[in-house]
């Protein structure tokens, strides 16, 4: 039971490049989330999705784009990466009142 799988686990890119972080769930949970985690800020919600083709902004959506064409996939795209987007990104889904998280994707923007 893999649960939530994120890829890549580690990524180094340069300012201005496009980066896509992938998230795949082996369940069929309706809701999925993207968070970023920075020292001193805890986990901040970027975007979430209620179902395929339904997405909504969280606390810090600027600079990010999401899509959800299939229930099991929820990719996060940085269209033009900036240094301030260096962070650890977590994907999650929710069922039964409990959030389930992936292992995270550590992104460094140089």
């Amino acid at each position, binding site marked *: 039971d893999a649960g939530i799988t994120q890829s890549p686990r580690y990524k180094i890119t340069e300012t201005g490049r496009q980066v896509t972080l992938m998230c795949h769930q082996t369940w069929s949970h309706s809701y999925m989330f993207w968070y970023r985690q920075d020292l*001193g800020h*805890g*986990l901040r*919600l970027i975007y*979430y999705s209620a179902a395929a083709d339904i997405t909504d902004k969280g606390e810090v959506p600027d600079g990010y784009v999401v899509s959800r064409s299939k229930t099991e996939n929820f990719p996060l795209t940085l269209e033009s990466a900036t240094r301030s987007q260096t962070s650890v990104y977590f994907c999650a889904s929710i069922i039964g009142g409990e*959030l*389930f998280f992936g292992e995270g994707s550590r992104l460094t923007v140089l």
Partner: protein
Amino acid sequence: LAKTTQPISMDSYEGQEVNITCSHNNIATNDYITWYQQFPSQGPRFIIQGYKTKVTNEVASLFIPADRKSSTLSLPRVSLSDTAVYYCLVGDMWGSNDYKLSFGAGTTVTVRA
């Protein structure tokens, strides 16, 4: 969104009880209080959830006063492996149309031998 406030860090020793209090003054009627634990290089994982009074499971207890404006996570007899960051999350976790669930900064608990 119900804003949460937790201590930034706490130190303890093996075998002691650790109590972490989370303040959430603007908690809404449909909000639940959920605590998560996170180890380095891992995603957070669920510890315990409650709505009011006291909840206990095999790893922790959660105390919620009648006004629900705060909650306390209690970790009995901690060990070195309990060293982690603990997050208090307040929100409607059950069937809400708005799942804007955001976490606070968390409490870093360090357990020493």
